[in-house]
């Protein structure tokens, strides 16, 4: 009987989070907008095909119901400009083939002032671009039940010199703003909400993420390094001056209740910042508040329990991490129990069962660097004001769950280091 009540409470809280996506849930009322004619839609597809180097594609205000992809194919110095995020809406709801709504290939391309709705797969994908700027681009899915929501909303991959500025990304099944396998990156002044992951930097070099608001996702900001990719050895990310709050959304990345092979399916709802197998990451001056499971997690890839291949030089460990001067606030909510990582934190932390944690370090060591965690061989530094008031943990993980231990002692990890990034050349873009 008691169990039933608990279950009922759990269901209630799920419903609450599902409905409360953080304000901007309702998509714009697009029916009362000007509806672009089939000729205007065809003209737009044609503009993407016919644009010449240095050209501008202007997309007037209106709702565009597009059943083909918009593809820029290797044309440089192109500007694609709408009339505003609320004024120019490109809907790909009727697309029946194609991996994304908009695909951009070309150097020095600017995407500005439009919205992309309901693309199957990804919203806007940019690949092999040197110089790609997303400014005031909103990418989202308007399906209530999320069963058809796409993977990434804003998705530059294998690019150099990427700027995401004043964008909005919401309701994606994976990451809202996802920068993959790229170099030299700024993500700023943007909002990501209602996604599984708000902002994710994956296998990237030299990235800065600042002045963003990542709220009401399952995980707020992620820095991941995944195995098996051509860009194996990535390094250098700074995350600063961001609001990373209330990331307690259910994790809807998998079609079923369990996980699948996408690492993102393992994210426990209630995660602020997660650093996974990353090298050279600095997290500072952020307000990491209201995340019910863990504000900052530093983990190695082994925690996923997925097999991996290191033959291309990739390493599963998080190394050279510096977390300092952030604001924390634990919410009055129970930590996640829906994911294994949530259960680990909820049940095995050093501060008592079912308590929200501020910092969790999985304590997984590369034996080549050392086997005594008190010597901090992976160079993981935490230097927060009032460290003593935070719920800090490092783990000693074992095969047998009952043998897993957690420790409150942060003293081995109080240190400083310099993380190198340099994106000054992108500031004027």
């Amino acid at each position, binding site marked *: 009987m008691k169990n039933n009540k608990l279950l009922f409470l759990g269901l209630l809280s799920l419903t609450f989070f599902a409905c409360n996506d953080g304000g901007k849930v309702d998509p714009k009322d697009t029916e009362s907008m000007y509806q672009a004619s089939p000729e205007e839609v*065809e003209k737009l*597809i*044609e503009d*993407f*095909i*016919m644009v010449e180097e240095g050209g501008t594609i202007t997309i007037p205000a209106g709702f565009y119901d597009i*059943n*083909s*992809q918009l*593809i*820029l*194919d*290797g044309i440089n110095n192109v500007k694609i400009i709408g009339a505003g995020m609320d004024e120019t809406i490109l809907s790909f709801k009727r*697309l*029946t*083939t*194609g*991996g994304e709504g908009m*695909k951009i*290939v070309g150097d020095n391309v600017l995407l500005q002032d439009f919205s992309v709705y309901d*693309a*199957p*797969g*990804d919203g806007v994908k940019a*690949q*092999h671009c040197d110089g790609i700027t997303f400014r005031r681009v909103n990418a989202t899915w308007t399906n209530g039940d999320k069963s*058809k*929501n*796409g*993977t*990434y909303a804003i*998705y530059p*991959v*294998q690019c150099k010199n990427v700027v995401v500025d004043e964008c909005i990304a919401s309701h994606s*099944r*994976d990451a809202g703003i*996802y920068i*993959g*396998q790229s170099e030299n990156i700024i993500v700023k002044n943007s909002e990501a909400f209602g996604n599984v992951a708000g902002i994710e930097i994956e296998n990237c070099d030299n990235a800065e993420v600042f002045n963003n608001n990542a709220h009401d996702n399952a995980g707020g900001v992620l820095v991941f390094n*995944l*195995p*098996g*990719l*051509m860009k194996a050895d990535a390094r250098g990310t700074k995350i600063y001056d961001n609001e990373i709050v209330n990331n307690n959304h259910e994790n809807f*990345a*998998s*079609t*079923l209740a*369990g*996980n*699948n*092979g*996408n*690492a993102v399916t393992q994210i426990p709802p209630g995660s602020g910042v997660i650093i996974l197998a990353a090298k050279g990451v600095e997290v500072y001056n952020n307000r990491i508040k209201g995340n019910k499971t863990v504000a900052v997690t530093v983990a190695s890839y082994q925690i996923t329990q*997925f*097999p*991996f*291949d290191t*033959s291309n030089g990739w390493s599963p460990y998080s190394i050279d991490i510096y977390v300092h001067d952030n604001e924390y606030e634990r919410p009055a909510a129970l930590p996640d129990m829906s994911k294994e990582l949530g259960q680990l934190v909820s049940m095995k932390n050093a501060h008592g069962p079912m308590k929200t944690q501020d910092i969790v370090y999985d304590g997984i060591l590369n034996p080549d660097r050392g086997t005594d965690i008190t010597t901090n061989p992976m160079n993981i530094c935490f230097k927060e004001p009032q460290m003593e008031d935070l719920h800090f943990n490092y783990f000693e993980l074992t095969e047998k769950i009952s043998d897993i231990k957690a420790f409150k002692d942060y003293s081995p990890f109080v240190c400083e280091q310099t993380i190198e990034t340099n994106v000054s050349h992108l500031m004027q873009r």
Partner: protein
Amino acid sequence: MLTNRIKISIASLVGLLIFLIACNSSSPLVQKSPNDIDFAQIPYPLLSDYGFFIGEMKDLVANERVLLYEPSSTLFTDYAEKSRFVWMAEGASASIMDNTWQEIDFPDKSVLIKNFYYPDADGGSRIVETRLLVKHEGKWNAYPYLWNEDQKDAVYKMTGAMLPLAFTDSYGRHHEIDYLQPNKNQCKSCHNQNEEFKPIGPKARNLNWDLDYGNGELKNQLQKWQEMGYLNNFTAAENYQSIPSYKHEDVDLNFRARAYLDANCAYCHNPLGPGSTSGLMLSYEVSDSSQLGYFKTPVAAGLGAGPHTFDIYPSKADSSIIVYRMNSSEAGVMMPELGRVMIDQEGLDLVSAWINAMK
């Protein structure tokens, strides 16, 4: 007065009719030739403008030096039948490159012509589209042509089209689909090596087999190309690889499945293709089991992973993401992500059997 007017209009109508008929019949009389193509003017508005076919367009009878070719393993496109032709300008020739894929380096003024058609109820066929790949000034470009309902010609259509089709496939099953002709830039979604437009099918290792050229001529395609002057460095068939047809059931299952993946997936899933972001590499020659997907977790599969953990779960086809995505026709889930709205049941069965047979 009134009768006069009527007479005049009838006369002018008849005149107009005669004029129209004369105009209509003029094109077959002056047979065009690809030799007259002005490559700077491409794309021509009509397929017939190029002169690749003689007589009735719908019969697709090849003009002189327009040569039929066929890769050993082919891409599935919603059970469409395909006929492919190659044409090169007089005096120009291609060479087989000394690389893994044995690609063919085509000269300028090469054209690859691919017709997509379905058998219709009365024993004929309905041609849906013709895609031209044209090499001009060192670069390939794609030009999609959509066939008219009356099957007399095809019109250049850069924005693509959707057309409802009912047909019976070669296995005797009836289907009704909304066929999708890609827009011009979607062509590059597959024809893409390092963002350079590339043909996919005509590689030496795909053409190194005997094709029936009609009139009793059964000949190795590379040999035929060399004889026609379309190749300049072919030596002997045994000096080149030969990828088998995945439809040949007497071929070893492993080779068949790998031939299928090569033709249907590897154009993207190779280190220079758009699918390289996934780390999954499916070319015929790949031997690294992790790159091939064995126990490999996905990277950006999203919904496409379904409930599964690995691209290929050896011996468990039903738990493999590759099979899950082949067995879908939902955009965002299905693979390939473009070029089909249907599931390739035979391809699915083949790849499933291959995975299930893994130890």
